[in-house]
Structures are given as structure tokens and as C-alpha cells.
């Protein structure tokens, strides 16, 4: 393979990895605070793409406005899912909440089929993103430049909030010890809502960019990216934001590269993610950046 073609794949790998990373953050944040895998997260991501579609084609919003609306509505949906499906089960066994999460996922998927219809729709792509840069013999769509940049910006904002603000401190405190957090006067339910809102908004950012790269919208489109992002979060060490990003990039990159180097395996592309997961967990059961937590009694 020539150097140029390698660069071409590299750019695709970075873009796909960024998208997985954005979605994976939502899984990892929710897990960190509730010890729950939010199975509906991939579907929340899907909803963002449909909000974009209807915002632009039905309500004639300018593209930028539609993006803002999609991010806000998706964030609100994440909060709503938590309110309706998870909060009532706060003191129930964890398995009940997990089943409820699976239920929420199926509900959103099937409601979407009813409401949006099963026939594919075309994601609205603004003229701006139709541009393709040619560098030597390689051609890179403009989205491939923007996706990683936006991901990095979103990540910096998120890490600032989590590490430097009082709300972020409260989020970390709640993730460690509900009751002690409550004793500080922290409104634990609010902090959990904020966590779902932020995770879902990042998924929406991912959804918008996903639509630009893969504009074919169907109600089940969140399934595979959701699953892959979940794998990315686990590979990186679930509960760890930087781990989710690392896992996302690793997964996206290796997925693209396996096809690049071994084109005959293209059909096994999705299976590869699972093989990678199993291989990494065999050697590092807590994920790459996950801490081996020893409880001090």
C-alpha cells in the first residue's frame, strides 16, 4: 500500500474514531455515576440525526440553527429517559434498571419506526461539507478535518466542566458516594440529570457529524455505532472519560485499517470490534485506562 493511500485511511480512521469517542463518553459518564449501561444511548444518538432532518426539511431551519436545536432536544431526551425509565428504579436491584434500559432502547427504536417511517431519509448536508480537498493523490472530504477538531473542542469543554467547576466536582462526588454527596447538600437527582443531559448532547454532536459522513437515515442507525461506542468505552476502561476517547479512536482506527490492509475481510468489519474487545479484556479486564479498584475497608 502506498503512503498516500495509508494517509487516506488514516484520515478516515481518525474521523470514525472521533465519532465513536463522542458517543462513548455518554456511556462512560452515565456508568460512572449510576453504574448503569444506558442501552438507549445509541438511540438517543439516532434521534439527533432525525431532529436535524425534520428541522431542516420540515421547519426550514438554517442548518446551524437545526444543529443547536438537535443538540438541545437530544439533551432533553436523555434527561427524560432518565426521569421516566431509571429514576423510579433508583433503589431497585441493578438488573431491573438494566432491563428498563433495554426496554427504553426498544421503545425509542420502534416509536421512531412508527413516527419517522422505516424508509431511509437523506440527512441534510450543507454545501460547505461537500468540499473535498485534494492533497497530492489523496482526497479528503472536509468533514474529515472538522470531525476531529469538533471532537477535541467538545472534549476540552467537557473535561473543563468535570475537573474545574463545582458542578463537575459534584458529579465526581456523586459517582463516588451518593450519601456523602447528599450530606454536602448536593441535589443528587439534579446532578444525575445534568450528567445524562451532557452525555446526550455529546451524542447529538456525534449524530450531526455522523449524518454528514453517512447520510442514510433509518430508525435503527443508532444500533451499531451505539454498540461500538459501548465497546470503545469498555476497552478504554468504563467510567473513565479519557479512556472512552482512547477506546473510540483505537476502535475506529483499527476498523478502518483492517479493511485497508486486508480488504478480503471487509465483511468481518463489525466482528472485528468484538474480537478486539475480547482480546483487550483478556489482558486488561478493567480496560486500558481503567483502574484496578481495591476497596479499602
Amino acid at each position, binding site marked *: 500500500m502506498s503512503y498516500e493511500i495509508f494517509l487516506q485511511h488514516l484520515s478516515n480512521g481518525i474521523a470514525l474514531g472521533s465519532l465513536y469517542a463522542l458517543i462513548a463518553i455518554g456511556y462512560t459518564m452515565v456508568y460512572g455515576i449510576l453504574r448503569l449501561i444506558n442501552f438507549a444511548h445509541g438511540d438517543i444518538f439516532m434521534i439527533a440525526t432525525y431532529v436535524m432532518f425534520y428541522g431542516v426539511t420540515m421547519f426550514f431551519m438554517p442548518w446551524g440553527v437545526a444543529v443547536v436545536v438537535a443538540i438541545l432536544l437530544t439533551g432533553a431526551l436523555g434527561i427524560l429517559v432518565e426521569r421516566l425509565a431509571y429514576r423510579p428504579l433508583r433503589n431497585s436491584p441493578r438488573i431491573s434498571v438494566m432491563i428498563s434500559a433495554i426496554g427504553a432502547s426498544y421503545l425509542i427504536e420502534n416509536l421512531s419506526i412508527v413516527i419517522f417511517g422505516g424508509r431511509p431519509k437523506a440527512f441534510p448536508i450543507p454545501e460547505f461539507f461537500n468540499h473535498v480537498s485534494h492533497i497530492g493523490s489523496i482526497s479528503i472530504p472536509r468533514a474529515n478535518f472538522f470531525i476531529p477538531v469538533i471532537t477535541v473542542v467538545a472534549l476540552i469543554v467537557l473535561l473543563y466542566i468535570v475537573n474545574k467547576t463545582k458542578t463537575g466536582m459534584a458529579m465526581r462526588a456523586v459517582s463516588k458516594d451518593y450519601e456523602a454527596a447528599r*450530606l454536602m447538600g448536593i441535589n443528587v437527582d439534579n446532578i444525575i440529570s445534568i450528567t445524562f443531559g451532557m452525555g446526550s448532547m455529546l451524542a447529538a454532536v456525534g449524530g450531526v457529524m455522523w449524518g454528514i459522513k453517512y447520510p442514510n437515515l433509518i430508525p435503527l442507525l443508532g444500533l451499531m455505532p451505539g454498540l461500538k461506542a459501548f465497546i470503545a468505552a469498555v476497552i478504554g476502561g468504563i467510567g473513565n472519560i479519557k479512556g472512552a476517547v482512547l477506546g473510540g479512536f483505537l476502535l475506529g482506527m483499527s476498523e478502518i485499517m483492517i479493511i485497508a490492509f486486508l480488504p478480503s475481510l471487509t465483511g468481518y468489519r463489525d466482528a472485528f470490534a468484538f474480537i478486539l474487545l475480547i482480546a483487550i479484556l483478556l489482558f486488561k479486564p478493567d480496560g486500558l485506562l481503567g483502574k484496578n479498584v481495591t476497596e479499602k475497608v
Partner: protein
Amino acid sequence: MIKLNDIHVYYGGIHAIKGISIEVEKGSVVSLIGANGAGKSTTLRAIMSLEKPKEGSITYKDKDITYEKTRELVKNGLVLVPEGRHVFTNLTVEENLILGAYLRKDNDKVKEDIKWVYELFPRLLERKEQLAGTMSGGEQQMLAVARALMSKPELLLMDEPSLGLAPLIVKDIFEIIKKINSLGVTILLIEQNAKVALEISDYAYVMETGKIVLEGKGKELLNDENVKKAYLGA
């Protein structure tokens, strides 16, 4: 300052607290002593609304707070240092202190108070950037107390501050409790280490299986034959 009136608490079917009445005067140190499982912690948890009493009432500064939200209580100067410290081990010492002042809006004053607790606990200043989980038990207990002070408490509830600490450190902790009290903070204290607790207490209650079985001035209980036998190992 606070008054518990015939409080009953149940854990499922278990009647953990069977009608206790306690009063704490402003400015005093009151302790609640008794064996494991007597219901001491449950009493403090009921005050902080972490458990809901089935019967009875709690009044704080002449206001009924029986079913008040925990965060409202914190806002009004009630704070609990929980058993087992429960500092946020994944946060730094300074972040723990900032969260202690979570509900306060007077940011400048909070900064001053952080300096003030560092003066009170110089060890914490040395470790301000360190994760709380990496500190020793005694240091974590100091942090738990310091964090509670950050909310500007009027009534400080402490659950077993000496638990699992070396005798010398226990002495330090009780010196600090006395000092905090001398600054005008009222203290309601739970202890298994009855001797140290009674020595600094103005008044004390002895609990057994969910009931108050004895009460009196700290010094009196220290010389009480029954207390000596049961709790002081004499």
C-alpha cells in the same frame, strides 16, 4: 437547639428506634453512647432526613424539620460527619473542602474559610492537592471534620469520629472537637469510646436497643456505676 420527640424508626419490619427523646442546648457538647446496634447512627441519620421516622417529630431552632430535605438542613446549619468518614476519595483534599461549602454562595468568604480550616488542620494544607483516598485514616477523619466545617454549621453531628484511629490521634480529634465547640458550634456526638466522649460532654444519653436507658451530665455518667461497668470497662 434541637429536640427529638418520641422518634420511631423502622428498617423494613425491624423497629430500630423505639421512641427516643433527646434535647441539645445551644453551645453544648452532647454525646450519645451505647453498644453496637443500639440505634445511635440511625438517630443521627433520622435527624439528617437520611431515614424517615415513622412517628415522632424533630424540631430545630423551633422549627419542625422531621421531613425536611437534607440539603435544606445543610443550608440551615446542620451537618453530619458520617461514620467511616466518607470523604470523596477520588477528589483532592481541596476539592473535598470546596464541596463542603457546596450550598454557599459567598465565594470570597469560602476562600477565607478554606484558609481557616487549613490553619486548624495544618496537615491538610500539606496535602491539599493530594487525592483524599491516599491519606491515612486519621487524616481522612480530619478532612471529614474540616469539610463539615466548610458548610458553616451551627450544629455539628459526629458519628464515631474515633472509629479505627490510633489512641494518640483520637486525642487530637477530641482536642479539635473541643476547639470547634469553643468557637460556638453546638455538637452532638456518637461514641463507642465512652470515656473520651463523656469527658468533654456537657450532657449525655446512653442508648440500648433503640431506647434511651440513662441520661445525665457527662461528669455524672462518668462516675455512674452502671455506665462504668457496661461502657468504661471498670
